[in-house]
């Protein structure tokens, strides 16, 4: 009985010390919160090979069929960021890729653009990594591409863009 009473007293002391400690640590705080929530939206870099400049995003590789060894397609920027470059793979071998900036190709001509300029060489391998575009491809815009096929009637074009293809910006506002 005496032991139980001692334990009870000890428990009371512990609770008292605990409550005392809490009271001693209580303090006033002040808080400031932004008056309106801040919306923060990230951009996107989305590039797809499509059959026409008005195509929607197919989210798939494009099979290009050649006519007289010449095939045409477009790369269209479906994102919100301008693209400085891209990587491309194709299934055909020995196929030469060219492109025109802000212009279609001259009809049936895979080497000249409709605006009279010469098409820009992009590459001729099956894997073309980290290629830089002469002029950044703006959001919503597309560039016309041609592929000169030799020994194949079709090639499948696959493209990718990385965050490295985006121009980084630092703003003060």
């Amino acid at each position, binding site marked *: 009985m005496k032991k139980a009473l001692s334990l009870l007293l000890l428990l009371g002391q512990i609770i008292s010390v605990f409550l005392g400690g809490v009271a001693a640590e209580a*303090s*006033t*705080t*002040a*808080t*400031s*919160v*932004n*008056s*309106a*929530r*801040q*919306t*923060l*939206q*990230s*951009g*996107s*870099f*989305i*590039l*797809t*090979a499509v059959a026409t400049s008005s195509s929607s*995003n*197919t*989210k*798939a*590789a494009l099979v290009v069929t050649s006519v007289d060894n010449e095939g045409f397609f477009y790369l269209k920027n*479906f*994102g*919100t*960021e301008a693209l400085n470059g891209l990587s491309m793979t194709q299934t055909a071998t020995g196929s030469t890729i060219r492109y025109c900036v802000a212009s279609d190709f001259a009809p049936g001509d895979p080497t000249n653009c409709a605006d009279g300029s010469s098409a820009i060489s992009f590459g001729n391998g099956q894997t073309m990594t980290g290629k830089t575009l002469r002029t950044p491809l703006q959001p919503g815009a597309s560039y016309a591409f041609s592929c000169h096929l030799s020994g194949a009637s079709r090639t499948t074009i*696959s*493209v*990718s*863009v*990385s*965050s*490295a293809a*985006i121009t*980084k*910006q*630092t*703003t*003060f*506002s």
Partner: protein
Amino acid sequence: MKQFKTRTPPTKRNRVVGALIMGTALIGGIAVVSSSVYASLNAQTYNTAAHSVSTNTLKLTMASSAVSGLTGGVTTAITGLAPGDVVNRFLELTNGGTMAASSMTLSLADAAGTTLTTNGTAGLQIAIYECSTQWTTVTGACSGTSTTAMASTTALALTTTPATVTLASLAAGTTSHLRVQITLPAGSEVTTNGTLPVGTVQGVTSTLTWTFNELQRTAATTAAS
């Protein structure tokens, strides 16, 4: 002729009345004596002028910078943030009460909960710098002394645990000129054939609540002054 009154013996009624009178007198006497026993002297003193006791106040407010071109603060939307982008916003944080403060912290909440605030690697990173004077317009440079108030911290961390913001002064009435640096790390995301990668930081929208918090200065025990 002188007449003599004869004394008649008291009746029973008279004896009862007499006893009551005597009892009442006895009780009254005892009461008087008792009160005399407990009576004591009493003395008081009081301050001649009222003693004024007042408390301090602790108030914290934030406002967008008033410097031309730097007024976006943390309420104006940020759009089109791409990996590697850095956005700087400018705040005036004022300890407007009458009491010094301590332990300033910043926490972040995202009502939308996107990868921008849930991914500790690819998501947002926040740093805060303090300038001893107003930040310079347009360039956001500090013409005075610039210090790091909060090293770069992930938004994920700020949503879970408030981070310490070390300011030059938390004295009453002090305004701190802050530059909040919001960075989306460059990362290494690749989008293939028009399809965004899983867990992407692209094309998402967070809705941020910025909360600064401070505690009162350390409670003081003072001697008579």
